């Protein structure tokens, strides 16, 4: 599967102001390229922190569904975060893990998922019982549909190719933060 294509399919399903946290590098580049929704938060550095940031958003606003998109390298850097999500059980949080078994942006070095690590098995072991690999694009869409309706937390793994991202995020951190906050601000 292809990250940009899956991201477009996911974003097309978001109709209720869902928050989306895009992990560093190609993951958030493709989120950007899928349409600059104000409810998207783009990480520019801080590898591995997309899941914790999304957990904070999800806990603060339990009525808003929150998605976090991460790559295999970033997830591997902060595996404990999966246990934290499982232990705090946010029903409105879905983790999407794009796994191409490599650190694509730094020169395609092999990551641990290219050898022994199975991210869905890790997620299940961390306590995220609702964890599944998407078999193909249609199955990915059906997993997203379920995550949009039924209580989470959800973990969706997707094995992807090494195609380049479809765009590049603008790098204005303060603007990204302000736009995101305005879009998800609780109504007074």
């Amino acid at each position: 599967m292809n990250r940009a294509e899956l991201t477009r399919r996911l974003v097309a399903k978001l109709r209720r102001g869902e928050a989306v946290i895009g992990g560093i590098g190609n993951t958030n580049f493709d989120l950007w390229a899928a349409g600059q929704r104000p409810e998207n938060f783009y990480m520019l550095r801080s590898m591995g922190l997309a899941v914790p940031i999304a957990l904070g958003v999800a806990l603060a606003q339990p009525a808003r569904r929150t998605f976090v998109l991460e790559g295999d390298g970033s997830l591997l850097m902060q595996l404990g975060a999966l246990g934290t999500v499982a232990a705090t059980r946010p029903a409105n949080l879905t983790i999407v893990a794009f796994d191409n078994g490599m650190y694509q942006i730094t020169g395609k070095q092999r990551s641990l998922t290219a050898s022994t690590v199975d991210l869905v098995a890790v997620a299940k072991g961390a306590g995220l019982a609702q964890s599944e690999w998407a078999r193909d694009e249609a199955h990915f869409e059906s997993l997203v549909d379920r995550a949009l309706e039924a209580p989470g937390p959800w973990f969706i793994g997707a094995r992807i190719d090494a195609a380049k991202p479809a765009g590049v995020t603008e790098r204005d951190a303060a603007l990204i933060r302000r736009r995101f906050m305005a879009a998800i601000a609780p109504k007074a």
Partner: protein
Amino acid sequence: MSWHASVVKALKANEVRLVTYIPDNVLAPLIDAVHADPWFRVICPAREEEAVGIVAGAWMAGVRGITLMQTSGFATLANVLASLIVPYQIPALLLISERGTLGDHQLGQAIVCRTMRPVLQTLGIEHFAIERLEDVEFVVGSMAKQAYATQAPAAVILSPLVTKK
């Protein structure tokens, strides 16, 4: 009033409702107090970076939070502070119990302690060390107020003069 009761009072006065922490023996009375108090949502993740990330996300979504840690935990945070908290202008509150000074028996704590203030200064992060019990509520409350008013992080350092003397 004990130092930890003063911290709780200051956090409540500033609408801080989320506490993330990585355990520390010195902070244990405060950790116990926030766990026992339904005002707070309390999360103990696996690493300090995670704890700061959760507070950052929650603040952007409208809930104020603080991260509790010890000196060695702060030493793991340079990247996340430099690449998330400071550039995105997020008022993350950090409460750091100062280990490695004034009678610590661990050499590792003593050495890592010396990295804390240079990192805070280099990143331009407002910080203040509380050394007297009677200052706890004022300093914690004031640091929180300034952080939220200026969209900037703040680090409150708890000296052994407060927690152990």
